[in-house]
């Protein structure tokens, strides 16, 4: 039980910290692209860890009690996690591309090869 | 422990109200629709916290995906 609690605390702590970093980065960074960096990476990573905590928790509870509902909890959490991992970077890509095409240029940029390339 | 749950409720509702307020006060339509979407999604979270998962699914599916879609279509069609 003690090990489980420790693991849960560690995982949840990492998750919360990275989520926090994500939202702070969203506030602190100067333009859309850097904000996307912060929000996408950090919140995805943080959510992965919180979900891992839930999955580990449910598997351990299943081990202890043998109640089938914890299997369902774990499996569905895994599915939710997979959805999150697949959709989040794609969404970030879509936003970045849309931002660039709608004329929002990166601030302080040293180089912008996309602007030079002029894709259709 | 119940007081903590109440604090969570108050937080969710506050964010939701701010988002709704933004939906009203934004001048441009697109940010307004985005704020409406945020309000709708947080409404879904609030339903979830109020132990109404059926309604939360309906609100998430309709508020997030479809309302957004039809609003965007309407904005596209009127410019």
């Amino acid at each position, binding site marked *: 039980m003690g090990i489980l609690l420790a693991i849960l605390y560690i995982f949840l702590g990492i998750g919360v910290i*990275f989520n926090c*970093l*994500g939202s*702070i*980065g969203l506030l*602190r*960074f*100067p*333009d859309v*692209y*850097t904000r*996307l*960096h*912060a929000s*996408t*990476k*950090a919140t*995805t*990573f943080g959510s992965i860890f919180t979900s891992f905590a839930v999955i580990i928790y449910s598997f351990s509870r299943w081990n202890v009690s043998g109640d*089938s*509902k914890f*299997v*369902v909890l774990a*499996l*569905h959490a895994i*599915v939710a996690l997979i959805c999150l991992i*697949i959709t989040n*970077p*794609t969404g*970030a*890509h879509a936003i*970045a*591309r849309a931002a*660039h095409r709608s004329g929002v240029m*990166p*601030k*302080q*940029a*040293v*180089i*912008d*090869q*996309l*602007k030079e*390339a002029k*894709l259709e | 422990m119940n007081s903590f749950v109440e604090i969570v409720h108050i937080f969710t509702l506050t964010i939701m109200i701010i988002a709704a307020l933004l939906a009203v006060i934004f001048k441009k339509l697109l940010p307004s629709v985005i704020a409406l979407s945020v309000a709708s999604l947080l409404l879904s979270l609030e339903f979830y916290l109020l132990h109404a998962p059926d309604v939360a699914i309906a609100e998430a599916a309709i508020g997030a995906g479809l309302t957004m879609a039809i609003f965007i279509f309407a904005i596209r069609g009127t410019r």
Partner: protein
Amino acid sequence: MLDFIITFLLSLIVYLFLVASTGEIAGLWSIFEIILGIILSIIVSIIATKVLFQKRSYRMLNPLRWVIFLIYLIGPFFFAMAKANIDVAYRVITGRINPGIVKISPGLKTDLGITMLADSITLTPGTLSVDIDEKNNDLYIHWINVTTLKPTTYHICANFPHWIRRITE
């Protein structure tokens, strides 16, 4: 027809994954769930086959590729992701950035491969895929810390393209 069967099997697997622990068959499923799953999967395959198999490539049927994919996911990818987050944490706290958009040519041919690479890049240190050249699969990357103005693929994404080539091509 092969497309249809593959889609059918995939959706059946997903369905069974979702309804696990409802009955006794293999300790997990009840007979009605399986029957219903088969019916629904047929319907889903009718709807989704045309969308899933637009290119008619069957490379991903090889289970070895899936094994490599899992190894990739747990090994280098996860490691890079952790590194990325520490990197982001550093930049969030210090606010030290030097951004730019650069172009790389990873030389991947399949759609799935380039997609996987783009998503990996988005989740790994300091990079974000902004746009893609549809003709020759060149990626335009927003790089938060531009160290060189003429970056090679390795600068951006280490040896991910090798892994992904092994998985998808």
